[in-house]
Each structure stands twice: as structure tokens, then as C-alpha cells.
């Protein structure tokens, strides 16, 4: 009886150890390539999550239809994380432990994804690539297996500031929400503007997150008589500011950052959005005169029939395409370990949709470029190609 007990326990421990085993064992030279992701498919962030999930899925479906990677299909699984760190950790355990994914690709969410780093990156050694989100701390110093393709908000802040200054702004007001993540971007606007021209006056107006009545804020801005206003706030607040500013006759040029490049802003702000300057991480998702964008729109139409082109889905579509290019460059087994090495030695990865990405062992964020956009005739229009801030 005792021997049976010991034997059973031994087997149980062996199974448990196997279940907790390192993700670096995942992957092989045959059969489908398991790739995982998470996005908020429920809850308040689901509107963006369904789009990020759909973009990556469309790309992998398209790649599979074209024969896959070295003849192997990609089995792509996206789990709902509801933008909740705990639920994201559960999703990560399922993807790494059960599905044996070789990588997490085009996931959505800065804080939820960061919560998985100890398990996914450090314990399981599974790489995380091209997350929709990210922070400076993710890449300085570079972490093994973590690679990004999204220009940091702080870099966006510098880019906006330089744009405003180059348009002649001498007195800039930065309206920003009060959480630290927004304050950091506002600070980068201040730094970028003064670095470009030390004579420029920059002041900040902090606003409570989720403010709907922007009349007191606009009244404050008006007293400062700015010639440019930079908004570091989410879409509904940016729309509320633009409408109120138009109503109160504030004529200063208005700038925003990439999260505000959203069709929702055009809908909510209406004609008050005309002339609004903002940034995009990708090519314009509606510019089908660009062959890469046309291919994305066609893939979305074919493989994600309930979706329309958006800044969310084009980013994850492009991220999935970049990942596929990395896999194509791997000779031999596709494993978590070989993927990490392949990213660093891939050279320049050009999807035609994202800025050209390049990674090294000391540089795990592939770009700091964005495209400048302006609202013209009720639609976003690109003002030039991808560009990085000069400072």
C-alpha cells in the first residue's frame, strides 16, 4: 500500500513538474506552430480588444491560406483577459502550460501584459512580441524575450512638441489627465518643446481622468492665450475639449497623441475636430492607395468580416506579419528560444504598415517613429511618412 502511495505521488509530482515545465521546451520542427495572445474581449476596453484580436487573426489566417511558415500552419489562440492583470496571468498559464505556445504575439494591454512577465518571460522563457501597449521601463534595460513595435508615448510627446514648435507655436498649453502615465507624456511634451526652442513657453493644465464637462478647463486655457494646445487625454475627453474650445472661441491649433487618432474622435467632436493634429503608429488604415494597406483591408474583409479597418487592427495585423517574417528567417526548429535569437538578428523588418523595425541585443524596442496626421474634411490625412523626433 505504502509502495503504491509513493508510486502514485511520484507520478503525480512528475506530471505536475511537466505541467510547470519551461516554455522554452515548446515548439518542434513539425506540426502547427502554436502562437498565443490576449485581448480584452469583454469589459469596458473590449471595443479596442476585439479589434486587436481580429487584426492578428486576419494576418495569421492569411499566412496560413498562403501555405504557412515553411509549410507549417500557425495555430493562433487569443484569450479574453478583460484588461484584468489576474485574468491575463490565467490566460498566460493556459497558453504556455496547455497550448505550449512558442510566443505571445500582438497582445493588448500594458498593465495586464506586464503582470505576466515573471511567469511568461522569466520563468517560462516564452517571448512576448509586438504588444499593443508598452512602457519605457519595458525596454530600458532590455529584457530577454520582450520586443516592441509601438513608439513610446514619451517619444510621441516629443514628436508632437516639435511639430507644434515647427508650426510656429511660442506659447503651448498641455492639457493632460492626472494619472502618472499621462503626466509622463505631458512632461515629454514640455521637454521636447524646450529642446527644440528654448524660448517657447510651455505650461500644463492637469485634469481629472474621465472629466466630461470641459468648460472650466477651456476657460483656464483661454486665460493663458496659447497658440498651441496639446491634449494628452483619452478620446472622449479630447472630443469634449475640442467641442468646448470651438464653442468658447479658442482658436489655438490643437494637437493630440496616437490614442486620439480614432474614428470615435471624429464622430464625437464632429466639425470641432477639423484641423486637429495627431499621430499614428501605423499607416492610415483607410488609405487603400498604399498596397500594404490594401492587403490589410482585403484580409480583414476576408477573415474578420465583422470588422472595419481601424488603427487597432492594422497595428496587430502588422505585428503578426512582422512575427511571420521573423519565423521565416529561422533555420531549424521554431522554439521560444530560436524566436528570441531570430528577432535580434533579423535586421530591418519592413511590414509596409509599421515603421521599419530593427532590433539588437541592446535595443528591444524596434522603432520610435510615427506618422503625423491632421483632420481634413472630417477624416484623418497623413502629413508625410514615418518620422522620429529629432531630440
Amino acid at each position: 500500500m505504502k509502495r503504491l502511495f509513493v508510486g502514485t505521488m511520484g507520478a503525480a509530482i512528475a506530471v505536475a513538474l511537466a505541467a510547470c515545465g519551461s516554455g522554452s521546451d515548446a515548439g518542434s520542427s513539425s506540426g502547427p506552430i502554436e502562437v498565443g495572445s490576449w485581448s480584452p474581449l469583454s469589459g469596458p476596453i473590449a471595443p479596442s480588444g476585439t479589434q486587436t484580436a481580429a487584426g492578428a487573426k486576419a494576418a495569421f489566417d492569411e499566412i496560413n491560406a498562403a501555405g504557412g511558415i515553411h509549410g507549417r500552419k500557425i495555430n493562433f489562440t487569443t484569450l479574453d483577459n478583460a484588461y484584468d492583470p489576474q485574468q491575463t496571468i490565467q490566460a498566460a498559464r493556459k497558453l504556455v502550460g496547455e497550448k505550449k505556445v512558442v510566443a505571445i504575439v500582438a497582445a493588448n494591454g500594458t498593465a495586464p501584459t506586464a503582470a505576466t512577465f515573471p511567469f511568461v518571460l522569466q520563468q517560462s522563457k516564452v517571448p512576448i512580441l509586438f504588444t499593443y501597449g508598452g512602457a519605457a521601463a519595458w525596454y530600458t534595460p532590455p529584457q530577454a524575450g520582450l520586443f516592441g513595435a509601438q513608439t513610446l508615448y514619451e517619444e510621441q510627446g516629443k514628436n508632437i512638441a516639435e511639430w507644434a514648435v515647427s508650426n510656429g507655436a511660442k506659447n503651448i498649453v498641455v492639457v493632460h489627465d492626472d494619472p502618472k502615465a499621462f503626466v509622463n507624456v505631458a512632461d515629454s511634451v514640455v521637454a521636447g518643446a524646450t529642446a527644440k526652442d528654448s524660448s517657447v513657453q510651455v505650461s500644463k493644465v492637469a485634469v481629472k481622468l474621465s472629466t466630461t464637462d470641459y468648460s472650466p478647463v477651456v476657460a483656464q486655457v483661454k486665460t493663458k492665450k496659447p497658440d498651441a494646445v496639446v491634449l494628452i487625454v483619452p478620446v472622449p475627453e479630447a472630443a469634449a475639449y475640442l467641442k468646448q474650445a470651438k464653442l468658447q472661441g479658442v482658436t489655438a491649433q490643437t494637437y493630440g497623441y496616437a490614442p486620439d487618432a480614432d474614428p470615435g474622435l471624429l464622430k464625437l467632436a464632429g466639425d470641432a475636430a477639423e484641423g486637429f493634429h495627431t499621430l499614428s503608429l501605423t499607416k492610415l488604415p483607410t488609405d487603400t492607395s498604399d498596397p500594404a494597406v490594401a492587403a490589410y483591408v482585403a484580409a480583414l474583409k476576408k477573415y474578420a468580416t465583422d470588422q472595419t479597418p481601424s488603427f487597432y487592427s492594422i497595428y496587430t495585423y502588422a505585428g503578426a506579419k512582422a512575427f511571420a517574417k521573423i519565423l521565416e528567417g529561422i533555420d531549424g526548429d521554431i522554439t521560444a528560444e530560436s524566436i528570441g535569437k531570430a528577432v535580434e538578428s533579423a535586421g530591418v523588418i519592413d511590414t509596409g504598415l509599421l515603421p521599419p523595425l530593427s532590433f539588437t541585443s541592446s535595443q528591444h524596442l524596434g522603432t520610435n517613429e510615427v506618422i503625423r496626421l491632421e483632420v481634413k474634411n472630417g477624416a484623418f490625412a497623413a502629413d508625410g511618412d514615418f518620422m522620429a523626433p529629432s531630440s
Partner: protein
Amino acid sequence: MGEFVLSTLSGIASGAVYGLIGLGLVIIYRATDVVNFALAGMATGALFVASSALGWGWGLAAAIVLAILVSATGGVAVREVLIRPLGSGQLFTALVVTMGVALILDDVLLNVWGGQPRTFPPLIAGDVHIAGAAILYQQLVTVVVAAVAMLGVGYLFTRTPLGSAMRAVAESNDTAELLGVNPHRIARLAWALGMGLAAVGAVLAAPVTGLSIGGFQGALFFAFTGIFLGGLTSMTGAVVGGLVIGVLANWSASYVSANFRDTVVFAVAVAVLLVRPQGLFGQPTFDRV
């Protein structure tokens, strides 16, 4: 001067919406002892239905009536299907149920209407300049409509047999039943009226704030603050509390810091409640032990 006028008038308009939502909360709470956390979500849902009706070619007035009917009917349905079976005295259970309804409803709205925010047309477009501040006609209409709605509710409760019955149920279910009042009928009416008022509040606010899932949660938050400030059981308190919160929020954003808007509002609310725990218009209650 312009900044003061703008902050004050805009604050009154926002406060009128908080007052309407607060009034809806108080009516439901007094009649059924339920704090309805799903109120904002249900009103949002009703407005999404109205938004679709506009898309089908309905007129604005018809769409607004539809929103009020959907909200009121939804309120009665929630009360009959989810709250009534709990029985009386289940304050916290009912609270959790309404929270659950709010979360489920958000997901339903997301799946039916998608996540993109929508616009909702104003009752009257355009603006007027008052003392150097541009005020939307919609904001002025909001104040007028809210005032009319509040006066109507006041008349209903103080001058009609139905209002007397509702007040009787609010005082004591059992005593009202002995007097021949059907408390379940009154509860249904209270939920319909409370949710109808919430829909009116949403109709008035949406042209300014836009229509999005979870978009009225902030207003619900301020409405709760308003009813605690005014007195949880007082309908006058709900209205006055909402208006005070709306104006105070804008003044603190203008003259202290937009960053400390909530801090100032809650500091004042807490200070008032320390002096008058029953709120500005609430009655002190005593439990016999």
C-alpha cells in the same frame, strides 16, 4: 467674469442631470429599499435603442419617448424578475444584483451596438453668449426640462392619491398594505418613474458628453454624492445635492485645480455630513433597541 459665468451655468446644467439621476435613485430607494447601481447602464441602453431608432428614420421626439419607455420598462422588468424574488430587507443582496445587471448590460450593449461612441442630437442646436461665455442652448434646455420634471415629480408626490400611496409605502410597507395600498404595484411604478427620470437625464446629457458604454457612470457617481449630501431619503435633497455638486465641481476645477476637482467636492460633502449626518434635507433616523 466670463469664466465664472461659464463655470456656474455649465455646472448648473451638469448638476441638473445629476439631480434627475439622483431623484430616480431616491424614488426607487424609498419605495423598495434598493440602491440601483444599474441605473446609469440601463439608461445608457435605452439611449442606444433611441439612437438606433434615429438611424431607422424616427424623429427625435419619438426616439426620446422610446428611450424613456425602454428605460421604464427595463426598470420594471429588473424589479419583477430579479429584485422582487429576493424578498424584503435584502438591501445588500439587491445592491449586488444591480451591480451584476450593470456589468452584464455593458457586455450586452457592447455586443449589440459595438464599442464605438455615438453622438445624440440636442433638443435645440446652437448657443448663446451670456456675459462673455458661450452656453449651448442644450445646456439651458437641460436646466428647464430638469426643473419641469422635478416639479412634476414634486406635484405627483404631494398632490395626488398615487403620490400619497407612494409616500405611504416609503414610510412603511406593512402599514400601507393595511390601508389597501398594493406595495408591489407602487414598487413597479417607482422603478418605472425612477428609470424614466434617469433616461431623461441621459437624453439631456448625451448631446454634450456623447453616448458610449459606461459613459454615464461618472454622472451616477456624482448623483450618489449629491443624494448623500442632500439626504438619502429626500427628493428635494437629491435635486439640490446634484446641483450643488455640479456647480462645486466646476468651481473647484476653475479656481482650485481641475486635478483636485473630486478632492474638493468630496471634502465639502464630507464636511457637511460630519455636521449633518442626515444630509442637508434628510431626516435623522433612530433605531429602537
